[in-house]
């Protein structure tokens, strides 16, 4: 679970070259900071990728981290995304025990959360849910009593909210 008070989301636009992720991750590792989640993928701009990093760091060291990141030759731009002014999503795949009465409850929960069932077995189902990370946390908590067999989250991705001049 992510500490919502100290967590910061950085959106880092980088050149799509080998070793860039290692450079970025290395700056955090060197200072002993743990990266909570990390998502990397190409952008619409060819040759550029966006790295979305969630870290649990106080504001002052984070400022220094951002400055150090900016010094990396392959880093083009860093934006800290304020959760109030950004949209965030994360995808979770979870396989959960679903037997007897539990099976119906799990399916109902999935519907409540707008998840989808991707795979069905005699005793288990695999569910996909994309939502705000805190919704995934809740869903995960609610599923736990049924017996989670395996679970994979992607780490959050985020973009700034569109400014409509309001």
């Amino acid at each position, binding site marked *: 679970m992510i500490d919502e008070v100290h967590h910061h989301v950085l959106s880092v636009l980088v050149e*799509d070259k*080998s*070793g860039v992720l290692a450079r970025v991750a290395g700056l955090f590792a060197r200072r002993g900071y743990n990266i909570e989640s990390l998502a990397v993928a190409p952008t619409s701009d060819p*040759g550029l990728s966006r790295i979305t990093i969630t870290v649990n760091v106080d504001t002052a060291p984070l*400022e220094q981290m951002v*400055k150090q990141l900016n*010094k990396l030759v392959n880093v083009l731009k860093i934006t800290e995304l304020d959760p109030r002014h950004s949209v965030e999503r994360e995808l979770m795949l979870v396989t959960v025990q679903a037997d007897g009465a539990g099976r119906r409850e799990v399916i109902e929960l999935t519907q409540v959360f707008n998840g989808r069932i991707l795979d069905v077995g005699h005793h288990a189902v695999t569910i996909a849910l994309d939502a705000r990370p805190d919704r995934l946390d809740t869903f995960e908590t609610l599923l736990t009593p049924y017996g989670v067999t395996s679970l994979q989250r992607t780490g959050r991705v985020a973009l700034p909210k569109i400014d409509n001049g309001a």
Partner: protein
Amino acid sequence: MDTSDTPAKPPTTDGAAPERINGGQALIRALELEGTDTIFGLPGGAILPVYDPILDSPIRHILVRHEQGAGHMAEGYAHATGRPGVAMVTSGPAATNIVTPLCDAYMDSVPMVCITGQVGTKSLGTDAFQEADTVGITRSVTKHNELVTAAADIPMKVRQAFHLATTGRPGPVLLDIPKDVVDPNNPDAWFDWYWPTDDEVRASLPGYRPTTTGHPRKIREAAEMILAAERPVLYVGGGVLKARAAEVLRELAELLQIPVVTTLMARGAFPDDHPLCLGMPGMHGNYTAVTAMQRSDLLVALGSRFDDRVTGKLDEFSPDAKVIHVDIDPAELGKVRNANVPIVGDCRQVIEALVADVRKLGGAEAATDIGAWRSTVSGWQEKFPLTYEQSEPGELLKPQFVLEQLRDLSPEDTIVASGVGQHQMWASQFWTFRHPYTWINSGGLGTMGFSVPAAIGAKVGMPGRTVWSVDGDGCFQMTAQELVTAATERIPVKVAILNNAYLGMVRQWQEMFYEERYSEVYLSPDLPDYVKWAEAMGCVAFRVESPEEVAPTIRKANEIDDRPVVIEFRTDSAEKVFPMVPSGKGNDEIVVSQGVVPNVAAAPHDADQAEGVAQ
């Protein structure tokens, strides 16, 4: 994933047919075109194809005896000349051997380009013979590094490397080049030669745009703050030397008569014999430089980075001072101490703009009268000069005495390269640096063994100058083998070993802070026999044990100009470096000599003066 920076169509010259060239030739030609006159290196399997075209190149290659030597020579060359040093070694153990110099250059912002060989691209990641993940290993000790995967990329990668190494905050850049990329027998290693333009180089580095011009509003604010200050100090760091800003620094200091401290990395940036020069601050700085910063109401930090060896205990450092901080690296601003006026920019450009603004605002006439401050400062200088006790007849030499003699008997523009430890501090304290780029040392990393190879590199870059390596016996044993290089290549450096038979600085700490429990610091004065060793390496060598031999031997050494000279001075192992701010203590607790702590012991007598100044 696209890893090629090669423009789609290589431009041709004058419409002539493009010239076919292989990767190895291209690398050497690219180095030539970047102005490289010297490569410090040592060949091996993976870099073999690049060593062949060296035979046809005007570049001088200096064959070192250990790859660490190549790195420090490149650093010494860069320190002395301001031009990037170039080192070239093979893969695996050679690359790991040069990690220390890379880290050293990174810490001290030394422009350096390092070429390493690598196993062929098909063998990468297979634990091939002499394979090491050089790019991975050196990532955190270089400004930038890259694996070059195509011969046609070489011209652009080399141009990028020099651009990155020499602009912004300078630093080491490494290119790791797999053997097949430079192998003339590989058809894929041949390509149509091209040389990227400056614009193409800049365009290829979209994430690299160093700010060199300071923000005009901030500079104006800084100028006003300097004019208003009552107890200003110019806190000058290595960035001033990197920016070639010594002249304009002097203009600023003299314009408003502001005292100047020069950090270990900035010795020589302001002349030591100038009335405004207070010398070196920090852990082994002199009382006046340390205390002026402590009592200051405005620190003008120019290319300095509030290193822990300067600040001492941070909470107690310069408590009343506002801070103007000028640095080309934005990450330095606010890293250690928050600045009231942070200015990102090249020191020379910013100081020039500051001087112009100060003049516009009325110059010295408009400045607060700081006469009282200057006389307080001169009072400290008179009361607490650097001192040491001369040896009694029959006792071992005092290292400070040796350095004073060396200083007085060598040409004024002598370049001094030191190792790390007591001898480094004494050299910095007792030499009189009158010119920039005459002091070369390992400041940030504190690399023992730096001196001999750095001195060789400096001498290669500045052959007309006298170059003295001031070394300790512990340091000398780490890299002395490079004197073989110096003798072979006829590089007449001079080495003064201050042989106190100990790892002296560690001994000093064990004496002061570990109740004289000496653990693993004794080295013996006689083993090795430094004179025989130096002679075996092709040097002229002398041993000096008594004060009256010091001057004549130095004179003899200074007259030798066709081979390296080593003088071993037998010095007093009990001698300690003072002043000293004990580790972890505030700078007010400075100990000026054994047991003398002026700001604490003498407080009742000095209270008026000290407090009057502090407020």
